[in-house]
């Protein structure tokens, strides 16, 4: 067996295709059946029902009609010819004059032909007697019109041959043939249609036996009217059982009632009217009872259908709602991982018992796998392994297995896992990528066999394309974010820790975890003329590459203007002017300070930036002086402040991500920062920085970029 063939059918239509059945029977078989049943029915009419009356139940009428309806028109001539020959043979063998039998042969072929032709005008395909329109057409064309035509011909023959009164014969023939068509063709059509309807089950003979019993009981005593006993049986069957059971019971009741009557039992025999009236009214009783049962069955079927529609509708509504929740979650999921998690958490369970999402890792080397159970599955994370995921990705189409045997044959090495998970059927669909190459695959597993139907497949397809869209968006986003981060990291100064005399520097930069919040935070430490050291912290409003670019320009501008400016306030002033030509720099905040190791003088200025924290020993306080507006806001008087620092003092400068977060007062956060710094003390900047980061950020998800810079002022050993 070739590998692709073992991965199940290509299309769902392969699943739906009906099994080959009676429709493909060879013609000889059809003809043989028609001849046998026709001869039997016709003989029964002569022997069983017919002796005393011409109003006989004529079951063969239904047999011919059924044969025509279940076979293509090309076979009709053969069927009709077989019927005509059989009719002639039976008639002649029962002593009818050969002179007239051709007339009955004509009547008994014209009748089903007319009925079938008319019915096919209105119902071209399968006849479903539980549909009002189909039932009405069947009754009008096959039970009404066909037998009417047949009885006209038959009555004419009878009038010509033995001189029986014509109108009486027409009514009698019609009643017998119509009843035969109703019970036999009704029964055959019901069974035929049940191929794709409600399953009949094995207990249908019970219903038939019950009907026979009720009929026998009802027709046994001649003077006690119990003939109605079959009615509740038929109605009860119509109410609770599939149509074939009801129709089989109707056929049994009809045959039994006619046999009972013709053998001298039942109320009709004792009615004291002519034989013809007896049998005529008997057929009328039977037909009206069966019609009542049929109408009841139609009503029940319509009710069930409406109920199923309602429950399907509710299910669809619930599923739609769940899909909306999922779509919202997918829209906010920024990473492949978040998308895969949303899919296994909220998506797969909508259609299947369990499942998984496999996504090809960015390099294309392996697969990352998430399962609905949240536990690791036995699927190797390699694209070379033979799993449903890799098969669906390789074949670029759904991989479908409806039985456990199928699955295990296709993926023998996965068999233990499937057994452990209780998977009996499933489908794996590729997640479509931009060009044809799939981004991964989704599996939908079922605890039963044949769990994958058309609904599941279309849902799986929809979910896969939804996942594909989200993944493509996220991957573009991830690339952009990662480019922004790389640019930012590349632009941040490699602070030569302790490389400058008189200071020890420790710095950290953490990008936001929520990708859409990536900002333009930066810090810098550099040497200035006269042995001074300048350091700066800044924050550009905005996100992604534009913010990183603005940050880079501001940073180099600041380094440049700081070389010539006389003091920090002037640095910020110059930078403000420079920023006029830097896009996206409006409202950027900057803190700048310079430090002279010889005099230990620190001068600092904040353009809208949070104040630096000065840690001296165990004392920590914010330097609230030297404040002015952010960059790009308009003419403003810049100012700076200054203080003389103790040995080993540390200035902690940071961006707002460290202290600002929703739900917390910034003053409280800043106090927490100061407390933590004070407790730790200014002993070692290299230890203080991670301590503060841990204390302020910890495992918290960062909503904003966060930069922190600790500058420790060491004795000017080399400064002289």
């Amino acid at each position, binding site marked *: 067996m070739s590998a692709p063939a073992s991965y199940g059918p290509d299309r769902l239509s392969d699943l739906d295709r009906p099994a080959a059945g009676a429709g493909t029977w060879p013609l000889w078989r059809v003809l043989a059946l028609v001849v046998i049943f026709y001869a039997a029915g016709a003989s029964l009419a002569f022997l069983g029902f017919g002796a005393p009356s011409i109003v006989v139940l004529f079951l063969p009428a239904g047999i011919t009609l059924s044969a025509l309806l279940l076979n293509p028109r090309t076979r009709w001539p053969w069927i009709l010819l077989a019927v005509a020959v059989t009719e002639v043979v039976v008639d002649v063998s029962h002593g009818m004059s050969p002179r007239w039998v051709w007339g009955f042969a004509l009547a008994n072929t014209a009748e089903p032909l007319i009925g079938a032709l008319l019915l096919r005008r209105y119902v071209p395909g399968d006849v479903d007697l539980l549909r009002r329109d189909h039932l009405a057409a069947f009754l009008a064309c096959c039970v009404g019109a066909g037998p009417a035509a047949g009885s006209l011909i038959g009555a004419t023959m009878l009038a010509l041959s033995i001189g029986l009164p014509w109108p009486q014969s027409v009514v009698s023939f019609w009643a017998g043939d119509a009843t035969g068509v109703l019970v036999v063709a009704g029964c055959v059509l019901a069974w035929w249609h049940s191929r794709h309807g409600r399953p009949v089950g094995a207990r249908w003979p019970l219903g038939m036996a019950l009907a026979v019993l009720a009929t026998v009981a009802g027709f046994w005593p001649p003077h006690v009217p119990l003939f109605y006993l079959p009615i509740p049986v038929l109605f009860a069957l119509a109410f609770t059982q599939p149509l074939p059971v009801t129709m089989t019971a109707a056929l049994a009741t009809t045959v039994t009632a006619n046999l009972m009557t013709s053998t001298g039992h039942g109320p009709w025999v004792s009615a004291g009217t002519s034989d013809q009236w007896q049998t005529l009214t008997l057929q009328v009783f039977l037909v009206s009872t069966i019609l009542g049962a049929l109408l009841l069955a139609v009503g029940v079927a319509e009710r069930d259908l409406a109920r199923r529609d309602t429950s399907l509708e509710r299910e669809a509504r619930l599923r739609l709602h769940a899909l909306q929740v999922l779509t919202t979650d997918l829209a906010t999921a920024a990473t492949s991982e978040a998308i895969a998690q949303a899919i296994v958490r909220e998506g797969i369970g909508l259609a299947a018992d369990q499942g998984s999402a496999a996504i090809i890792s960015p390099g294309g080397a392996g697969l990352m796998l998430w399962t609905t159970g949240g536990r690791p599955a036995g699927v190797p994370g390699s694209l070379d392994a033979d799993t449903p995921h890799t098969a669906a990705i390789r074949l670029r189409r759904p991989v479908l297995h409806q039985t456990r045997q199928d699955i295990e044959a296709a993926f023998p090495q996965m068999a233990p896992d499937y057994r452990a998970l209780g998977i009996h059927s499933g489908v794996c669909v590729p997640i479509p990528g931009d060009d044809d190459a799939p981004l991964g695959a989704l599996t939908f597993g079922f605890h039963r066999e044949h769990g994958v139907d058309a609904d599941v497949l279309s849902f799986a397809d929809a979910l896969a394309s939804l996942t594909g869209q989200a993944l493509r968006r996220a991957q573009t986003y991830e690339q952009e974010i990662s480019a922004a981060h790389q640019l930012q990291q590349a632009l941040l100064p490699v602070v030569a820790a302790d490389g400058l005399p008189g200071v020890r520097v420790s710095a950290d930069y953490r990008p936001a975890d929520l990708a*859409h*919040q990536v*900002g333009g935070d930066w810090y810098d430490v550099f040497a200035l003329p006269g042995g001074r050291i300048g350091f700066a912290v800044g*924050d550009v*409003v905005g*996100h992604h590459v534009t913010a990183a670019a603005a940050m880079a320009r501001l940073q180099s501008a600041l380094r440049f203007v700081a070389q010539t400016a006389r003091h920090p306030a002037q640095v910020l002033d110059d930078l403000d002017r420079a920023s006029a030509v830097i896009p996206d720099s*409006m*409202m950027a*905040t900057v803190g700048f300070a310079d430090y002279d190791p010889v005099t230990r003088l620190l001068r600092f200025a904040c*353009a*809208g*930036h*949070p*104040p630096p924290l000065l840690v001296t020993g165990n004392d920590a306080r914010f330097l609230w002086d030297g*404040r*002015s*507006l*952010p960059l790009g*806001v*308009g003419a*403003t008087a810049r100012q700076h402040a200054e203080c003389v620092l103790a040995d080993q003092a540390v200035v902690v400068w940071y961006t*707002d991500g460290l202290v*600002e*977060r*929703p*739900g*917390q*007062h*910034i*003053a409280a956060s800043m106090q927490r920062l100061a407390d933590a710094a004070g407790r730790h003390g200014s002993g070692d900047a290299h230890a203080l920085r991670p301590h503060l980061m841990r204390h302020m950020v910890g495992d918290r998800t960062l*909503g*904003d970029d966060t930069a922190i810079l600790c500058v420790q002022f060491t004795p000017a050993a080399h400064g002289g």
Partner: protein
Amino acid sequence: MSDFQIRTATHAGRIVVSVAGECDLRHRDEMTTALEAAVRAAPVVAVDLGAVRFLDSSGLHALVSARQAASRRDGVVYVVNATGTVAMVLEMTGVLQLLRPPA
């Protein structure tokens, strides 16, 4: 999800823009659009920050942009009811002095 809301009410000669929720990058465009529309519609725009729980640099950016747009048309934008962390952020960045109510 965030409960960010922005509403504009017109009074005689001025517009009051009431902001609620978290003013961060996610809502910067929405806030900028509403404020700029207000600035175009009236010479005096008051921004009520009473129901704002969080204001970051994006929110500040939107406020200052609106103020600059107003200045170009000789208009005024000011904030009222800033409390707690919002007031402190406005003060710390110096933006509060730009957006003080006219005397």
